[in-house]
């Protein structure tokens, strides 16, 4: 009833390939877009900078990781390292006088180059071995960031990021940072949405499903995997730069360590492999739920009169986080995105669902 498919007819080929063919979808996207634009007015600056901005930036990183993990089906343990490369490169770029936009792109390109060099060697192996190579990449990056003061200024030093400047205008303030994050996130989302309409997207799906079958029909799987790695690294690098400029304000090696990589992977899995809306939901879930559940548990413990030590409470978010990963993989391996699809499919034929098989 809500997602009415009746009355939709196409009179031209571009129409058949429209991104959102249902009116309900278009309306929803428009409403969300408007809300996103006026969010600083709706929510206070605190919420915007503490919740919305990081959520958007992590979502764009998750979308980038989804490109390699969900669309191309290649494991990537070292995405945080890629983000770190982009972040540090961008900071050094601005410090050396590059205009801010150029520095961001330079960060992305740096990450792409290093990602590609690595991928060129790593893509000769598959599956588990690829995963382990990316893990080794992450550790190597960790080591480099800790031991090469030229890049990071040392382990304990945080590298300050100058305030971002668009077209020469210095942007401070929470709101402008929010809009930067929003702009980048929208850019990546539009790219990913369109991916399935492009030959690249179709090739990636073919490679993911059965790469030798794809090779038989002429899809050079190595080249496409490399392209996927490159694109994904670019998105990751720029996302890393954005998170440092628009959220953290400074860069430290801990921000791009192995646990961040695992957190990103968890966001992808919980959100759903290959699902774009899932990336949004997965990022939100992992950012919010452990903290909220922790408060809930603390509150429950208080009600029950049980005393939980500070130590215990400090680790409960992690327990919940691990439990979430396990739970989602057991119950719904395709994540929140699939749950959303199920609801949507149900609503598409409601109230005539009983007529389905």
């Amino acid at each position: 009833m809500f997602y009415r498919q009746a009355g939709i007819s196409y009179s031209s080929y571009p129409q058949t390939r429209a991104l959102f063919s249902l009116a309900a979808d278009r309306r929803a996207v428009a409403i969300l877009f408007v809300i996103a634009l006026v969010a600083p007015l709706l929510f206070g600056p605190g919420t915007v900078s503490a919740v919305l901005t990081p959520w958007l930036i992590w979502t764009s990183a998750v979308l980038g990781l989804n490109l390699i993990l969900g669309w191309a089906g290649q494991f990537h343990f070292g995405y945080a390292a890629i983000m770190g490369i982009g972040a540090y490169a961008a900071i050094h770029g601005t410090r050396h006088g590059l205009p801010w936009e150029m520095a961001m792109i330079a960060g992305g390109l740096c990450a792409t180059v290093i990602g590609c060099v690595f991928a060129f060697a790593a893509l000769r192996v598959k599956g588990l071995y690829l995963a382990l190579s990316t893990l080794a990449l992450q550790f190597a990056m960790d080591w480099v960031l800790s031991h090469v003061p030229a890049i990071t200024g040392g382990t304990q030093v945080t590298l300050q990021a100058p305030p971002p400047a668009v077209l020469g205008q210095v942007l401070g303030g929470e709101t402008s940072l929010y809009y930067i994050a929003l702009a980048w996130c929208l850019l990546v989302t539009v790219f990913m949405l369109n991916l399935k309409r492009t030959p690249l997207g179709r090739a990636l799906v073919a490679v993911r499903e059965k790469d030798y079958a794809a090779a038989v029909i002429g899809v050079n799987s190595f080249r496409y995997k490399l392209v996927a790695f490159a694109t994904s690294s670019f998105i990751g690098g720029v996302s890393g730069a954005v998170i440092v400029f628009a959220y953290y304000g400074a860069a430290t090696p801990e921000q791009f360590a192995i646990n961040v990589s695992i957190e990103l992977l968890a966001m992808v899995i919980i959100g759903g492999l290959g699902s774009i809306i899932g990336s949004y939901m997965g990022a939100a879930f992992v950012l919010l739920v452990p903290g909220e559940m922790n408060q809930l548990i603390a509150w429950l413990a208080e009600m029950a009169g049980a005393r939980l030590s500070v130590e215990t409470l400090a680790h409960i978010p992690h327990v919940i986080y691990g439990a979430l990963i396990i739970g989602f993989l057991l119950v719904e391996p395709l994540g929140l995105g699939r749950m959303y699809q199920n609801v949507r499919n149900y609503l598409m034929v409601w109230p005539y669902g009983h007529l389905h098989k």
Partner: protein
Amino acid sequence: MDFVLFAELSINGAFSGLMYSLIALGIVIIYKSSSVPNLAQGAMTMLGAYMVLAIAASTGAPLWLAVPLAMVVMFSTGMAIERLSLRRLAGQPIVMILMMTLGLEIFIRALAMAIWGAAPRRLPIGISDDPLFLGPILLNQAFIVGAAIAVALFAVTALFFRTRRGIMLRAISDDYTASWSVGISVERGIALSWALSSVIATVAGVLWGAVQGVDQSLALLLLKGVTIAVLGGLDSIGGAILAGILLGIFEAIASGFLDPVIGAGSRDLVVAATLIATIMIRPHGLFGRHDIERI
């Protein structure tokens, strides 16, 4: 070139390498039977050590009794973990399975921290801290005992795989369908291999807990375990021993000579470099089967 230092580093490195390869052994046993790379093996090691401490504390039993009791508990724990979490994912893409083991790793590690706190605890198993002297070479007693126990455990494992149950496990790792067709319960075999790996992890946890204390750093032994498993061949038990010795020596020598040059922590770099080099040059390791490249 200081030969005494070189020899000292090599011998101690070999012994510690043998202790690392216990973790690799657990990974290899699980991988052989169920094709699952168990990234939670480090967490299981840590859990085993904590279990020993918990049993000793709650029942007041002495350590030589608490360790076997913990092994029994971990046997069932390993079976339960496989039954509850991995069996559902049989046949799913390797991405999901890897994430599941990662999720288990995070969960078990955080649970241990939440229950027992993050402060390191001592696990004294009666080895004196005094070093042994072999001529001018200084040997760490804990490593000698640990290596001896590791070798004994490897021997027991090799003997196990000659028994009927062991042969059935090897059959399972060869061909599931053929195993079903002659009445071998593949599900029970996989559960058994997880249980055995947990028991081995417990022993490894005790040995390493005695050396470096029981806390979450035990879980970080995973990276060394995985590197050794890959270097030796993910489905080769003999390979795990040899690779462990090699990595132990390599790591000790490299950190002994490189640490002054490029700063502390070079042993992690050495491990990561070994992992990358193995995957690039010979992914199936020293003794692994060729076909396991095609996962």
